[in-house]
């Protein structure tokens, strides 16, 4: 341990996205906090979120947090824990107001209040009609949240360790003692010794071929927890957004279809008419994703490839409006005004002008509903009995509270970040006041350093990119919008082989400074593990619920499967599943129809 630098803090927060920064602000009020991030904080993927953050502010029309809670529970296919959902929806209101007081530049209504808009699944419970609940700042809500929180952290002089890659959690029995990180610029190992640790490291969409997620979203935090004896909850539920730009996965918001856009297959048919005769293209995310998948599988993709067209050109939209007997018509100006950012994306990346040409889209891996199990204070739970691991916290997409259950509602992730980020931060501060700084175990960083040494010196000649591509392909084929026993088993077998192959990955860069070759390889290890956990969890759930759609078990089975999955790692490639009950409340499970 000679060349390992040791730092001491009350609390260490890993991840500087919306969740990590929110926690840092609140924990930092009384505790001495360090925020570690492998990216500069403002580069976290929270900045990519577009649509809005949900809170029942009722700035323009009647709304209540109970309605918000109802929508969330229904959207989750009743798998969400309703006590946590209540906290989410109730706390959302003061939290959003607080963000405004921090200077967040929300758009405004003419009356000067925060502007809100409609979003899929958010309704007035009395009328069943959509309600304006998504608070937003243009199409850049996530960006504004991230920037505002970072700005406040600078104001409060939070200790940032930018471009520090956390690679291990120091856990001794049922205590946490800190984390091990690599300073990317020097390649040196550092130990951050602390009373409390929080993981807010975001999602792992990079397990799949096509994703809206950043290159850096490799699920490090979840994987580290898994390796350190913490189970992962509900990993089979991963949301696929139906309209990502072909090949790139860049998100095209639901708003396009809200404005009349239609999905067209290779034969020029509006295929959603057959899958969801009533609401057609505006069916929920999981339904539309499955429809696209089936079209492509039946050879009706555009040009025989694996994509379909999303068409917002006035001719097409007006044609279908007329056919459906609707009075509305749209024109070029309307599209330019309503969807400027989408127009920019498609023009930049496809050279496609959405006003005159259809956009090629395919489902894109988007959001992890599952993750590190926590309670509503962000405290990490170790088992089905909800045993707390003292001092250990998780928040944001990496965590599973669980408020999203089997399918997350649009805008609820940003709400999740700020609400539970804040609560976890506050709880952490409280914890740090009473807790003691425990001694580091002997050679706390030795194990992970040895692992890195092995990785660096492996001479198997396998290229990392090959392993990663194979994993992404396998996950896309076996565990994506659709899965059956057969596809999952195939993927599991392939992942097992890839685990072997991964041992042979050879790193070309042998240096220390900015060795992204090495770190990417390590991240691939995390992805492989999470992919396997996802597949194992999915294989064991013989029902269809939310994002987990089993061709061989198309029905939801509340009698046996209204429960959360917990996946423990028991050895290399060995996992043990456990289940815990869903906390029900006001809203009884019933069939999900919109």
């Amino acid at each position, binding site marked *: 341990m000679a060349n390992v630098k040791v730092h001491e803090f009350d609390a260490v927060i890993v991840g500087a996205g919306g969740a990590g920064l929110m926690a840092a602000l609140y924990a930092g009020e009384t505790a001495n906090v360090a925020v570690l991030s492998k*990216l*500069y904080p*403002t*580069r*976290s*993927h929270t*900045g*990519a979120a577009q649509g809005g953050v949900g809170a029942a502010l009722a700035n323009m029309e009647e709304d209540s947090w109970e309605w918000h809670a109802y929508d969330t529970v229904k959207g989750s296919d009743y798998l969400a824990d309703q006590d946590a959902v209540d906290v989410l929806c109730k706390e959302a209101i*003061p939290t959003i*107001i607080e963000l*405004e*007081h*921090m*200077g967040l*530049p*929300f*758009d*405004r*209504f*003419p*009356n*000067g*209040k*925060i502007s809100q808009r409609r979003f899929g699944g958010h309704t007035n419970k009395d009328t069943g009609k959509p309600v304006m609940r998504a608070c937003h*700042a*243009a199409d*850049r809500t996530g*960006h*504004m949240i991230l*920037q*505002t929180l970072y*700005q*406040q952290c*600078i*104001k409060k002089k939070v200790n940032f360790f930018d471009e520090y890659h956390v690679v291990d959690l120091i856990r001794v029995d049922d205590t946490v003692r800190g984390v091990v990180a690599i300073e990317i*610029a020097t390649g040196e190992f550092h130990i951050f010794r602390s009373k409390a640790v929080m993981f807010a490291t975001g999602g792992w969409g990079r397990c799949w071929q096509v994703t809206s997620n*950043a*290159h*850096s979203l490799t699920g490090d935090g979840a994987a580290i927890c898994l390796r350190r004896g913490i189970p992962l909850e509900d990993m089979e539920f991963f949301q696929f957004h139906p309209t990502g730009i072909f090949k*790139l996965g*860049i998100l095209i918001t639901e708003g396009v279809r809200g404005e009349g856009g239609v999905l067209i297959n290779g034969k020029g048919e509006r295929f959603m008419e057959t899958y969801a005769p009533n609401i057609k293209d505006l069916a929920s995310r999981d339904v539309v994703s499955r429809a696209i998948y089936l079209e492509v599988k039946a050879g009706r993709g555009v040009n025989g490839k694996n994509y379909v067209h999303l068409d917002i050109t006035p001719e097409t939209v007006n044609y279908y409006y007329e056919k459906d007997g609707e009075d509305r018509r749209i024109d070029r100006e309307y599209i330019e005004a309503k969807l400027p950012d989408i127009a920019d*994306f498609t023009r*930049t*990346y*496809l*050279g496609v002008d959405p006003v005159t040409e259809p956009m090629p889209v395919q489902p894109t891996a988007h959001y992890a509903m599952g993750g590190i199990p926590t309670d509503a204070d962000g405290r990490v739970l170790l088992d089905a009995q909800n045993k707390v691991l003292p001092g250990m916290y998780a928040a944001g997409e990496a965590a599973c509270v669980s408020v999203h259950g089997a399918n997350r509602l649009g805008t609820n992730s940003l709400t999740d970040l700020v609400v539970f980020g804040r609560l976890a931060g506050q709880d952490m501060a409280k914890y740090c006041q009473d807790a003691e700084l425990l001694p580091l175990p002997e050679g706390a960083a030795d194990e992970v350093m040895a692992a890195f040494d092995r990785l660096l010196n492996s001479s198997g000649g396998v*290229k*990392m*990119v090959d392993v990663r591509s194979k994993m992404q392909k396998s996950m896309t084929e076996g565990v994506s919008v659709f899965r059956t026993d057969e596809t999952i088993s195939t993927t599991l077998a392939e992942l097992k082989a890839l685990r072997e192959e991964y041992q042979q990955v050879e*790193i*070309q*860069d042998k*240096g*220390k*400074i*900015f*060795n*992204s*070759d090495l770190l990417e390889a390590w991240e691939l290890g995390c992805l492989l593990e999470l992919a396997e956990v996802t597949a194992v969890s999915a294989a064991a759930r013989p029902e269809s619920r939310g994002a987990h759609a089993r061709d061989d078990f198309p029905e939801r089975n509340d009698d046996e499967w209204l429960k959360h999955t917990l996946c423990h790692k028991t050895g290399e490639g060995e996992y043990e599943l456990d289940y815990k009950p869903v906390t029900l409340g006001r809203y009884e499970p019933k069939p999900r129809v919109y």
Partner: protein
Amino acid sequence: MQVNLRIRRFNPEKDSKAYWGEFNLNDVDPTDTVLDVLNRVKWEIDGTLSLRRSCAHGVCGSDALRINGSNALACKTLVKRLGSGDSVKIQVEPILGLPVIKDLIVDMEPFMAHYREVLPYFINDSEPPENGRERLQSQEDRMRFDDTTKCILCACCTSSCPSFWANGQYVGPAAIVQAHRFIFDSRDEGAEERLAVVGDAFGVWRCRTNFNCTSACPRDIEVTEAIAQVKKVLTTGEI
């Protein structure tokens, strides 16, 4: 198509001087981005190539590079926009004016230090409304600083500015954009403190309206206009 790639390389652990590395790639899709091309080099040919990247669609600000002579985000620059025909020449260098750490990676600290100088955070110590709700703001007031809220701190602008190349003490366009975002926010009360920073000798006066910053900004922010607005506040005393 074919891509002939020239990349400015420098590994402080091996090289005493930077040099040009050449790579030739076949079967590049014209709609691939420069980031895709660089990733291919890194993953398939030379794993030691170092660059920053994350979101891959122009919203995180990681991969500001100098591409064919001018600054841009690699992930927002399509190969086909750099040339047509069967073969395209692409030249990639680190951005200017910040110390190079390795290959395409520069030390961002001087840039971030200037960012922090302008007090880039909301300042309002008066009590929020009594009803516990948001402060009100008219849509017109909100629109005044809309453009400058889009900044992703990529440094494309600051590292394209000759005034910054000449003298790194100049706070640079990105920091002024941040100052503008708060100075023009009707809810903010820290304008005078910020104006004292950007009105200093190394503030806005160093801007010679060169406009490279605006041309380079991947978020299409009217950077020069924002700087001119701040200059105007400093000369008229009115926001």
